[in-house]
């Protein structure tokens, strides 16, 4: 599964109303709240083997699926 698809799957497992085709801001629009973010980090650790640090939890990194994908790819390559 592509990184992007897996990210969408994780987000939908935390919030089934999430529609990746809709223009929403994942943090600002409350798609994931702080409880969900903790679970997202844990799921991403398992799915991609990356450690998302708490300092990375900023709206710039969690705005949309593309920004999360960039973050994960950056962490994978570091």
């Amino acid at each position, binding site marked *: 599964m592509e990184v992007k698809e897996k990210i969408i799957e994780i987000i939908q497992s935390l919030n089934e109303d999430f529609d990746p085709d809709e223009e929403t801001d994942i943090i600002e629009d409350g798609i994931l709240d702080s*409880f969900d973010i903790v679970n997202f980090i844990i799921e991403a650790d398992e799915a991609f083997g990356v450690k998302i640090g*708490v300092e990375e*939890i900023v709206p710039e990194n969690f705005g949309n699926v593309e920004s999360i994908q960039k973050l994960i790819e950056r962490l994978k390559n570091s």
Partner: protein
Amino acid sequence: MKQIVNNELFSKLLAKYLNKEYINNAGRLIRDYKFLIGEKRLYYIEKDNYLLFFEYRKDFYNLYYFISKLNLFIDTEDLNPGKPVVADEVYREDNLSVSTDALLEAGFKKYLTRIHMFIKIGVKDVQLSDNIRFACEDEADLIFELQNKYIDKYTGNFLFKEEMVNEVKNNLIFSIYEGMNFAGYLRFRINSKSVSLEGIVIEPEFRGKGYSKELVKYFIDYFSKEGYNKIDLWVRDDNVSALRLYDFFNFEKTGYKCDNYIKF
């Protein structure tokens, strides 16, 4: 117990424990850690099978835990900082948490339960009632006293005096009046596009007159007008009148619940 002296130490500790091998209740901590470290109120204990964070709240500590799933055990010694310890456990209704047993085993008692509710709001133009205004600074004492009397100090997002004064200064409290008299308040938190209702208290002599309802209506109208998209809140599951009030405004359950545990 050691103090968390900077954000780097916090990030380093979390990197070790934020994974599927550990259970945690750290949602709120991850939202608030920078502020708590800045205020020098965050401490930790690290052992082989757990990491515990303690938020100092003067009369008690809030506990944020990371416990190994393979060894769900906390040494009672680590939970006796000389003041009561409160632990919140947030979970989805359909997915009961596994850490309950570890907390009970460590001497915690179930204290109370809250449920999470929300409504979507949208831009609308409304006429705002004129007996409600942002609280003014000379009401901070009154509001603080009302909070002391009627909000649970361990679990009700209870504020210190200086925090309450800041909330008033930052326009995060609405006051309602009967004529010239202060009758009660509604406190809230503003997020980027949503608002959280943090608490409502009406003075006893003004109860039964619909003032809570007026405050909530004003709150919804005010933030609808301002273009916010959602309101959320936590309400005690035994607070029948509050549940009825939120039901009146069509708040829905999100499915999240929070059990509070306490160890005196």
